[in-house]
């Protein structure tokens, strides 16, 4: 090549200079575990379904959601959303309204009549599910999708378990519940109602079932011994709430006292108020701070005019009047009697002191372990008897719908593996995408969307749903508040901030890759990644 005057070399590109050899640290793309997913008792992949929801693809979002939980419209109403408690956004402004977006997706699915995809293969195995509550329905759904034949036997006149016979209508309208149950049954799950299983081994033998999942719940209201005079009206909260589903509504009178401090006590008091009680008083032996009920439920109850009597125990019930003893908390936080008494006028007393499990169906089953009134299961949800699994309220756990749904899924995976003679091994969990992994500069401030609430007057007299839902615009807004913790959302930051042009953009949906020929390992990409999806690892030199 002929060169101009004073030029002796061909000009070349710096591309020949592989600066990747300078590197001592190497960036790698990772998927970290978002705190919401980590906190979800039902094991939902929340970050992933929000990702689809924020692009407006609600059906895809719903399909991703229902891979783990078949009851989003129910969940979007009754779940206590531990996901929101764990949400990293709470440290920026407010937690993402995950629960309200879930409800929007659930309602959208009912409105648009989205169906589950039926199983493609048949395994030829038969599984009996006892109990059509959240745990049983969840197990049936997952087992059916895995190709097993599933039959649910339930003692009650309708499916739903505590979702129908425990949760009041103003929190969970029954048409929503019915729609989500029907969608599961439409997969080909057989449902037998009014079919109480008295002897599990017998039922399995007769029905030629290869395995069973027990999820009978805890429906027996605990009674405390309280001396009671004649004609005093005492009933338990479970019975009260269940009878709300029947023809004969209970007569409670004008003044109702509920004894207990859990969510059931709140439900019972709010129900009593709607039944016409002018005074509904919750008597609890400790303080509000120590109440097991969720604070927002206590708040909603107070808004509806429910009264609370803290630090009190009921000593005696007579016709129209209760004797209450004042308590004080000792230094360990336990209530101690003070010897001071007072009386409380009342027409009826509702006991909300917890629930027991009816374990009679297990009589005569060998190798079972029963402790504190619950069935003991191993980490694979199997009882001591091979092939019999159990979950939900009847095993030791936190008794919520969401935990029950999670049990159903987990049990289904283990039952499926057990039926195939294998052991289910859960995939290893990713590292947690904690707040310190994020670079929140890149997220604009955006406060949470508040769901509309039914006005007070109607909340005191009707069973209309208290909390409203989001419409499409604000559901989309809410979904887009997600920080996508630990998972790339293709914001192009790494591609943009690399001073060495060493990030290759692979196009929509395909994310990025590093060009290690040129990456000098400066870590700018990792530092400026908003969601913590890049990790720096040492080069082996």
């Amino acid at each position, binding site marked *: 090549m002929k060169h101009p005057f004073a030029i002796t*070399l*061909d*000009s*070349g*590109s*710096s*591309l*020949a*200079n*592989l*600066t990747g050899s*300078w590197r001592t640290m190497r960036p790698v793309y990772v998927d970290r575990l978002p705190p919401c997913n980590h906190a979800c008792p039902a094991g939902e992949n929340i970050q992933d379904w929000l990702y689809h929801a*924020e*692009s407006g693809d609600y059906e895809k979002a719903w399909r991703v959601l229902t891979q783990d939980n078949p009851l989003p419209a129910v969940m979007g109403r009754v779940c206590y959303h531990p996901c929101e408690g764990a949400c990293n956004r709470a440290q920026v402004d407010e937690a993402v309204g995950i629960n309200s977006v879930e409800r929007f997706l659930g309602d959208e699915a009912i409105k648009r009549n989205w169906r589950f995809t039926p199983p493609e293969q048949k395994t030829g195995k038969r599984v009996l599910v006892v109990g059509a509550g959240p745990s049983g329905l969840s197990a049936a759904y997952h087992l059916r999708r895995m190709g097993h034949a599933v039959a649910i036997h339930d003692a009650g006149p309708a499916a739903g378990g505590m979702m129908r016979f425990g949760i009041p209508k103003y929190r969970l309208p029954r048409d929503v519940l019915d729609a989500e149950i029907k969608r599961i049954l439409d997969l080909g799950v057989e449902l037998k109602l009014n079919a109480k299983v008295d002897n599990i081994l017998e039922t399995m033998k007769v029905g030629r079932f290869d395995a069973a999942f027990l999820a009978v719940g805890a429906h027996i209201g605990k009674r405390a011994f309280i001396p009671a005079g004649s004609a005093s009206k005492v009933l338990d909260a479970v019975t009260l709430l269940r009878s709300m589903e029947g023809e004969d509504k209970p007569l409670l009178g004008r003044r109702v006292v509920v004894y207990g401090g859990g969510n059931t006590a709140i439900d019972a008091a709010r129900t009593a108020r709607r039944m016409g009680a002018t005074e509904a008083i919750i008597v609890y032996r400790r303080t509000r701070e120590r109440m097991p009920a969720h604070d927002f439920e206590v708040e909603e109850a107070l808004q509806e005019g429910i009264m609370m009597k803290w630090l009190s125990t009921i000593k005696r019930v007579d016709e129209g009047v209760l004797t209450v003893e004042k308590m004080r908390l000792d230094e360990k936080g336990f209530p101690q009697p003070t010897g001071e008494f007072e009386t409380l006028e009342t027409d009826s007393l509702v006991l909300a002191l917890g629930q027991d499990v009816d374990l009679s169906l297990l009589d005569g089953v060998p190798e079972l372990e029963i402790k504190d009134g619950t069935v003991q299961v191993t980490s694979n949800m199997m009882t001591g008897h091979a092939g019999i699994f159990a979950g939900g309220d009847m095993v030791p756990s936190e008794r919520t719908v969401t935990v029950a749904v999670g049990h159903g899924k987990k049990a289904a995976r283990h039952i499926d593996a057990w039926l195939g003679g294998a052991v289910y091994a859960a995939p290893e969990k990713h590292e947690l995408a904690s707040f310190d992994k994020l670079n929140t*500069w*890149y*997220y*604009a*401030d*955006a406060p949470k969307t508040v769901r509309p609430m039914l006005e007070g007057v109607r909340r005191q007299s009707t069973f209309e749903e208290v909390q409203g839902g989001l419409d499409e615009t604000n559901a989309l*807004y809410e979904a*887009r*508040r*997600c*920080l*996508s913790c630990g998972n790339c*959302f*293709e*914001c*192009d*930051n790494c*591609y*943009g*901030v*690399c*001073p*060495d*042009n*060493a990030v290759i*953009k692979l*196009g*929509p949906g395909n994310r990025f890759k590093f*060009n290690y*020929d*040129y990456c*000098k*390992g*400066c*870590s*700018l990409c*990792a*530092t*400026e990644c*908003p969601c913590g999806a890049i990790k720096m690892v040492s080069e082996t030199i």
Partner: protein
Amino acid sequence: MSDSTANAATQKLRFYQKGTFTVGNRLVPDAERSVQASIDRSNALTCGHRACQGCGEALGARYAMDVAMRVTRGNLIAVNATGCLEVFTTPYPETSWQMPWLHSLFGNAAAVATGVAAAMRVKSRPEVRVIAQGGDGGTTDIGFGCLSGMFERNDDVLYICYDNEGYMNTGVQRSSATPPTARTATTPAMGPEPGNVFGTGKSLPRIAVAHGIPYVATATVADLHDLERKVSKAMGIHGARYIHIHVPCPLGWGSASHDTIRLARLAVECGLFPVFEAEHGAVTNSRKIRRPVPVDEYLKPQRRFAHLFKDAAGAKRLAHLQAIADHNIVEYKLLGQEEGA
């Protein structure tokens, strides 16, 4: 992109809380994303250059040139002053520039660019635009005379200064853009007044504004959208234009390579580097501080300021720096709501 459409785009991005300030955003159309988000950006400054890890100047230069390449559809010539940018991109005979690029002397980039622009006019190639660029040494010290001449003649050149606050590739010597108290090889952290002394140096953006030229702006590598908008706007104007881009230097500042963008951001958020625009001699707007921080947060991660955090005398100088920042905040109206927000 005109000003009003840029504002509208920013406003629209606010709805996508997740990607408001990120380089790209999968939820908005390609046309509304930054040039840097584009899969076919020109990469005017490509891989294999010899800048240090985490170099702010390499980043700033690619950001600016890729926008200019897009708006001129590749009809662009760059004239480079001597400095890091020239040395690390073009060690003879190899270059990282994927565009026509010229280097002459340390101090004459503005004059050479004026000449290139004149040549294009003579050759009837009005579509070809010219950018002169250099570091703060080549701009505020050595090339200052030529630059001031280019300004007062209103030559059709956009001059971009990448300000890393010193002569970095020759071994970190002080320039007239080095901030007070910064330790450099020529302003050691010793004696009664350690580091660069207060009351020295100059603000070239202000001097440029005083020339009354059509457009002056400051920008940083921490705010890509703002930088791209300004370069794009400057390329839409004829006559002398000046953009001053703050580019942290891990080597000269004694900071971690991964902190380059964070430091550029903190410089703005603490008020020490005001980001503003001026037209025909008057400041027209400034970028508001989003998350105010004291100057310590910006200074502490830089070893050149380590002596400020050692004793009471250091604390006093720190307070002086804070006063400068506070003065900037008032003078450039750095607090308040972003216009159109």
